């Protein structure tokens, strides 16, 4: 099935089987491996991408359903000028350890902050609750997302 997959502002015409997951197509056909796969049941959130600005578990979303929509992956966060403030905040706070959950965590946080630029700690906790991290105990991730709120 031929679709136009728009990822990070670039349109990729791809011809794929309709049962392919979005994460699989991103990683293999499009060549963007920043999106990770960590579980079989939508529990870990490592595969999180944005679809028209909202978070979606790309491992369990059919790639063909994104035809004509805007997909944003972790590779789309930084621009030519450098890291996005949220990326920098994650590094500054120490919110990155092994880094495997980081792309998904960044995408959920990006979605949260675009809807709610000054989230409370509780709102951060709920907003990122679909992303498991085994390294950090989440403390420095909460700090990073809180500190990225524009008011501070």
């Amino acid at each position, binding site marked *: *099935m031929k679709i136009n997959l728009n990822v990070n502002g670039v349109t990729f015409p791809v011809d794929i*089987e*309709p*049962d392919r*997951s979005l994460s699989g197509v991103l990683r293999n056909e499009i060549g963007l491996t920043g999106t990770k796969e960590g579980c*079989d*049941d*939508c*529990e870990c*959130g490592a595969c*999180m991408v944005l*679809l028209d600005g*909202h*978070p*979606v*578990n790309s*491992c*369990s*979303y*059919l790639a*063909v*359903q994104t*035809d004509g929509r805007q997909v944003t992956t972790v590779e789309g966060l930084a621009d030519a000028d450098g890291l996005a403030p949220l990326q920098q905040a994650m590094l500054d706070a120490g919110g990155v350890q092994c880094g495997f959950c980081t792309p998904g965590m960044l995408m*959920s946080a990006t*979605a*949260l902050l675009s809807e709610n630029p000054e989230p*409370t*700690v*509780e709102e951060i*906790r*709920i*907003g990122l*609750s*679909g*992303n498991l991290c085994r390294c950090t*105990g*989440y*403390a*420095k991730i*909460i*700090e990073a997302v*809180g500190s990225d709120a524009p008011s501070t």
Partner: protein
Amino acid sequence: MQFVIAETLEHALELMASGSRPIAGGTDLVVGARQGKEPLPDALVAIDRLGVLASIDGGTGEDGEIVIGACVSHATIAGHGDIIDLVPGLADGSSLVGSPATRHVGTIGGNIMNASPAMDTGAPLLAAGAAVEVASTRGSRLLAVADLWLGPGQTSVDSDELCVAVHIPRPGPRTSSAYVRLEYRRTMEIAVVGAGAQVSLSDDGSVASASVALTAVAPVIIAVQGLSEVVGLQPGEAARTVARLASEQSRPISDLRASDRYRRHTVGVMASRAVLAACRRAAGEEIAVPVNRSEGIGAGYPGDAVANTTADGVEL
């Protein structure tokens, strides 16, 4: 596999008439296939772009009925002013579903038609006396949710019928609802057990009428019977009675998540809490959605006392 994005509702119904299965967020369908529970169907019709299925009518019609399109997401329901005002129990349920991502792509239609006995929107809908509107090329019909679920994954709807909307009768004055579930973690849970209650209060604060439905204690969501017993009781006494009835009437299984004995006990606790929260809301008290995180078992930490400090104890 064949995959078609429906252009109109009629288009979707035609494809379903020829054997396609509907997909919206795909949260149950695709995850189920990944887990090897059931392979994806041979033909899918995507209905998530049909605007006609994506709106909420908060009771503007003559009968004041609340109508929620089948493709309305849990996130939308959980944050919708009319739903929070009129049927907060449903907002409680939707706001507990999965993760933010699941709530954004997961739809109410998908949730109820998946017919899991652990679904979080089922008990509030049953307690509210809701009906589903299903359509096919043969026409459309309304079906009470009480008559919808036959067993885990089984409904009384034909395979060519598409759920297009949920209809909820407008609750009367001094009436409100709540949904409480037992969850081991504060988020990302599937109900171990749960209970939805809708209560109307008399002027003296006693219960005028109540309906209560239970999650994950039977093959389907079940309604608690014999609630005339609580009419006239003050909320506390009513909640205790409902707890007893809920425990007595539940038919839980033992599995990995809990034993039947524990489920039987805790569903009573959940039912009692749901009744109390519904009573307080009916009396005009504002309890934030979801009840679990503001009042229930999911509360009692960072939400209140320590919410304004970072994990290092530093004031934000």
